[in-house]
């Protein structure tokens, strides 16, 4: 599990192989009597060059954790680092730039702009930044994903699986610090889902990227290097080198706890 918060010197950029880190991360909704804690002093570390899955029952806070780690949502207390940058003190404009330059996103659905071709969608973050993409890298990504002959297609002309692959390619194209995938296979049939997972795996293994994936599918989680289990806003367990059965068993224990 993560380093205890009290051992850290606040404000100092942590070194070492972490792509992202959270310390005492708390996210509360509402205030006073009716306050609900979506995240309750979470400490987490995302290792660089690894594939981390976040699992947990619905309402456990796994999506919130991802949103906070990615700078999409503001936090109530605690600190978050992406690479060497502490992000909770950043303003809106700096956060936007951080997302653009350091983070890649793959959402469950509606990942692409319908008016742009697949190729344009892939280079969109760099185009927005006004940077020239690293063409060699982009070509590698496109070829790895087998999208070469789909570049001129509009999203509407692509299957759901192809669309998610394009989304993965876009997330990778700017070579971000890390990639967040929010239920990337949630809307896909099993074969397409498998393709996307295989690609995320290859992105880590072959392209040395860092991926964080939120999922509720044990099969998908099993493709990760490490699974973090969340329940009631806290990280309650972690499982290195998971298998689908082991993850499923672990998840069933949550259900049992709930029943009792």
């Amino acid at each position: 599990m993560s380093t205890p918060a009290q051992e850290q010197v606040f404000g100092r950029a942590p070194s070492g192989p972490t792509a992202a880190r959270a310390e005492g991360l708390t996210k509360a909704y509402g205030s006073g009597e009716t306050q609900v804690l979506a995240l309750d002093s979470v400490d987490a570390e995302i290792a660089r060059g690894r594939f981390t899955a976040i699992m947990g029952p619905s309402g456990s806070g796994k999506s919130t954790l991802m949103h906070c780690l990615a700078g999409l949502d503001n936090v109530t207390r605690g600190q978050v680092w992406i690479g060497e940058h502490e992000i909770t003190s950043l303003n809106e404009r700096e956060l936007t730039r951080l997302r653009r330059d350091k983070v890649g996103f793959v959402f469950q659905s509606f990942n692409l702009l319908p008016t742009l071709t697949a190729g344009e969608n892939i280079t969109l973050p760099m185009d927005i930044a006004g940077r020239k993409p690293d063409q060699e890298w982009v070509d590698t990504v496109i070829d790895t994903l087998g999208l070469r002959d789909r570049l001129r297609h509009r999203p509407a002309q692509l299957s759901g699986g192809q669309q998610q692959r394009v989304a993965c390619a876009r997330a990778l194209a700017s070579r971000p610090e890390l990639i967040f995938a929010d239920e990337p296979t949630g809307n896909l049939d099993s074969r397409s889902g498998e393709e996307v997972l295989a690609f995320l795996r290859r992105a880590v293994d072959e392209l040395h990227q860092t991926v964080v994936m939120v999922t509720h599918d044990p099969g998908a989680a099993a493709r990760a290097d490490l699974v973090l289990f969340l329940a009631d806003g806290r990280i309650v367990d972690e499982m290195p080198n998971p298998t689908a059965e082991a993850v499923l068993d672990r998840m069933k224990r949550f259900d049992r706890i709930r029943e009792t």
Partner: protein
Amino acid sequence: MLKATLRSFFAHKGRMALSALAVLLSVAFVAGTLIFSDTLSRTFDHLFSSTSADVTVGPRREFDANDERYSGTVATLPASLAARAAKVDGVAAAHVDVAVGNTTVVDRRNRPVGPTTGAPTLALNWYRSDRSPVEITSGRAPGGPGETVIDADTAHRRHVRIGDTLRVVAAPGTFPAKVVGIATFTTTNPGAALLFFDTPTAQARLLGRTGAATAISVDAAPGVGNTRLKQRLAADLGPGYEIRTQGEQAKTAAEQLGSFLDVLKYALLGFAGIAVLVGVFLILNTFSMLVAQRTRELGLLRAVGASRRQVNRSVLVEALLLGLVGSTLGLAAGFGLALLLMRLIGKAGVSLKASELVFNWPTPVAAYTVGVLVTMVSAYLPARRAGRTTPMAALAEAGVPPSKSLRLRTAVGAVVTAAGAAALAAAATGGRAGDAALMLGAGVVLTLIGMVVLGPLLARPVVRTVGGAFPAVFGAVGRISQRNALRNPRRTGATAAALMIGLALVGGLTVVGTSMAGSIDQEIDQTLGADYTVQNGVGRPFPPQVTERVRSTPGVGTVIRERVVPARIEAGGHSEKVLVIAADPELDQGLRPKYRAGSTARGLAPGRIVVNGEYADKRGLGIGDSVSVRFSRTRSQKLTIGAITPSQKNQAVGNGTNPVIGMDTLERNVPGVLDAVVMADAAPGTDKAHVRTALEKALASFPQVQVRDQADYKDLVRGQINVLLGLVYGLLGLAIVIAVLGVVNTLALSVIERTREIGLLRAIGLSRRQLRRMIRLESVVIAVFGALLGLALGLGWGVAAQRILALKGMKVLEIPWPTILTVMVGSVVIGLVAALLPALRASRMNVLAAIAHE
């Protein structure tokens, strides 16, 4: 079902707001115009009937009193008639009236005291009467020669105080008058300036005839009806007088004003109509988008058993609600607009009181009819589309517009546009102005419809071209904007069409206006031979002293006078009313008239007349034939045609199609007509600028006339056309405002539709500023597209209209490039302004909420 409809209406009230605003603006314009014109005519009716005497005895005229403003002559009757009238049974009192409108009053520094807007300065004799529109509120009544009382409004406006001495420039001569009293209007001030003198002064100085009067006002004794009194007076005084009861007098006055008010009313309603037309596009677009967004919801309704008709009707009921709300608010805003209009004409001197606002029943009827009908008609197509929603739609992806083929639209649009273009071409090449105008009208309507239909088709190529540089200049943001504008060509087309209508009218009218100005410039160069013209700003004649001053100015050579009198010209049993112009024999040096036959010398010789070719052809007349010209009831003369001007030469400079006679001929028939124009040349060997300065100095005490050289004359014409165009632009501004609302509406709804996309873009790193720029660029593209369509259409209209004008002699075609450039730049500004709120709204969206948006 009704409950579902109501719920839906209120759920979308934000989105309805802009449509309601469009209805509101259109209705407000209609209602405001009606309230304003009703108020104006009621006020004047009241003014006329309260200030008319029970019975008025006036001189019998061949032409109505209005014609006197051309000649400056005043018809009179003997003042002794009052004494005779007073003896008639049933007459309580008879007053001598002296009222003239041909004077100019200036202060010590020669600045005009009366209105310069065209409203008259009335000089009257003072006597105490219940009918008087004023009462003396300070000082005293005028009691002798050289004393006057001025109305309070004018005194206030021109800072005239009791004790000031004014100079009154009247037809018989100029005389000084000391202000001894101020009179305040007890009725509505119709905008005129009033000056009162005692009766002998008025007779001597204003009419130049002691013992004369312009009318006799008769008060009836108690119990005597006006009509009976009129009969008695007629019997006693004999023929030769026009005797009118109070009712008749007021009615005549109201009729004269009424025709002017009608023109004003219909012009304003015309602009209201354009605003309504533009509003239609906005409402149509709103409902189309609402229906498209609610496809799933409507599909669900159909799936649970709602019939097509029910779905259809639910949309129409929403439209009805919108129409009712918009009309009600519009009616209220109409009052505001009427007040504003009243304030505006208050600036021109007419002081109306807000408490006198007239609200007649046709006003709300018209307001609700316009508002509700327009909304229902606009919503009809979207409602029908809603009715066609299949239950399957409930399962389909939301917000996907039906990609219906544009083939039928292409065909219809192409045919209508082609027909319109053909009509315009026919108008431009047609021979006769009357038919051509009809073709022009048809062409304008057809091309407008055609372009509206074709708008969505043209959106693709035009937006591609206009936004072509966007990706290069603005990068990814530019590319997305350009593509977004093309996403729904129908919507882009309809949004741009709204803007197109207003701008097409601006374009067309500007082409016509500048072409007219250009033609008149040319005509001035070709026609106006005189170095200087001396004229009154609103065409009123001026006293003979002005001409004398011009003649006696050193350096002035030839002086040519022109006068204008109303007359009837009779030939072959047909009689028509015309304005006859009388000119000095040296006319050739002043105006270089052209003749089909004859010459100036032959046309202006005693007993001769110049007529227009069109008139001569119509009546089958030629040189040497004679016509009978009736100058007044008592004076008619046979004149021989000595020259004929070319037919259909509708000049703006010179004597136009009016018959022209020699000055001698006029003097013999109607003496005492005032000069309307004096043309003068600098004597050979003198410095023209020098002479001009001398002329201006000589005429300094006559501020009612201006000295102009040829360049001034051109400026004057340009200025008049620009004022007219400015007025039209101002009124078209309303249509453009509604069109801008349409752009705002479209963008706002697009932003809502694309919430998830915006969320995604923000998540992957689009900054707020970039997002705002993206929406602004899309807006600019739509606005520029509308401006391009509008200007193209307007130029086509303008050129066709100019060809018709060319038939009437306006041969110059001038394309107003500065205006076109201004409109293009303006459309970019419009785009930027329209995008303000939608862009702000989009940039404030919460990223996570936007991504999760359904």
